[in-house]
């Protein structure tokens, strides 16, 4: 059934359309477009580094959150916000990872090899070659920046704020996560709700842009790239600290992310 999630009462709907002379779908889409525009005008894809205590100003009068900000400040010096467009996990992960490789070049070469080889694995899984190659090429161009002598922190910042690169990186990371889920489909099937197969889940929740990420996306991506991620959860829970989860479980964290309901930003340890 198109348009309505219940059997439409046509007489009423028709009356609505005639009376107001507007199409409801248009209104809904216009509104979500306006919200999107507001977000893209005001928040960079990847923002500047900020002092961790800026978070406190956001939670004035909120003791639960204030306590958690204080706890974070004992462990982290700063944060970097990313645009809340549904891609925030993948973009935060990509930026934080490359930034950490930039500062610690000894891990760079082994990562570059994993990234280079990731394409073959995806081809074996049946991803379409020529679209995959486009995204892989653009992704490798960004990865290779790390090894170039004239690359600075600003280079990464600019590249990740340039949609032509940034969104390509996001897509390719989504494909890597999808590939990992499909490769270990028997295992991941246990974590997928509803009657979807792993393949359907990947097609609907992992590969499309703007679809938000859950634990399963994080486990898949961090496992595929062999990169440890520590996520700090800041929510309404009772705990006085922002609880940490490491992905994959036994791996020392190479990057740190802050999760607040519906959104990921990057954290920098003291």
């Amino acid at each position, binding site marked *: 059934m198109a*348009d309505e999630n219940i059997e439409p009462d046509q007489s009423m709907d028709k009356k609505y359309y005639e009376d107001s002379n507007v199409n409801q779908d248009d209104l809904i*889409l216009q509104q979500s477009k306006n919200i999107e525009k507001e977000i893209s005008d005001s928040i960079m894809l990847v923002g500047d580094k900020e002092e961790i205590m800026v978070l406190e100003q956001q939670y004035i009068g909120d003791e639960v959150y204030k306590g958690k900000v204080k706890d974070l400040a004992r462990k982290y010096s700063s944060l970097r916000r990313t645009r809340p467009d549904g891609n925030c996990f993948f973009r935060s992960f990509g930026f934080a990872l490359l930034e950490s490789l930039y500062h610690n070049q000894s891990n760079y070469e082994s990562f570059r090899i994993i990234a280079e080889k990731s394409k073959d694995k995806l081809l074996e899984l049946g991803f379409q070659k020529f679209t995959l190659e486009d995204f892989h090429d653009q992704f490798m161009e960004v990865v290779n920046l790390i090894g170039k002598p004239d690359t600075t922190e600003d280079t990464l910042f600019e590249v990740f704020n340039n949609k032509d690169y940034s969104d390509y990186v996001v897509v390719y990371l989504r494909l890597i996560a999808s590939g990992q889920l499909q490769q270990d489909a028997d295992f991941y099937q246990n974590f997928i709700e509803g009657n979807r197969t792993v393949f359907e889940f990947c097609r609907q929740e992992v*590969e*499309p*842009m703007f679809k938000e990420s859950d634990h399963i996306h994080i486990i898949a991506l961090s496992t595929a790239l062999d990169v440890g991620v520590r996520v700090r959860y800041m929510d309404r829970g009772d705990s006085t600290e922002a609880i940490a989860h490491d992905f994959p479980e036994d791996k020392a964290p190479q990057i740190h992310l802050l999760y607040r309901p519906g959104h990921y930003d990057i954290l920098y340890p003291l």
Partner: protein
Amino acid sequence: MAGLSPSERRLQKELMSLMKEPPPGMEVDSDKAEQNLNLWTIHMKGAEGTLYDGEEFQLQFKFGPKYPFDSPEVTFIGNNIPVHPHVYSNGHICLSILTDDWSPALSVQSVCLSIVSMLSSCKEKKRPPDNTFYVKTCNKNPKKTKWWYHDDSV
């Protein structure tokens, strides 16, 4: 290839591949596509042994400047619109990969294959139950419909 935007480059590449190795029963109108890279017509034959065996259809693809990050606008055009529970008589198609589940890693070719498979699995030729209402009230652009996807098993 200088001067082409990433979107145009990608479309060029897809057009070449579709001309060289078209999926079975499909043919892109390459003259038309070369004149206007953002508007393609694809001729499509109903697959053998299905309810659409022997029929011919035309699919129109419109690409925006954000392709492949935004999905293409895909409709049936011409005087034979397939009679199918997910295809409206104005040519609009209710298929999730054309909006919500679109991914930049999909392509014109994968959309065509999905449409062929959608037609091929059809057991009874009929229009969507809300066809009359929808065709009267919808936007000209099917991407502007908030689709509630039909059960894929239909």
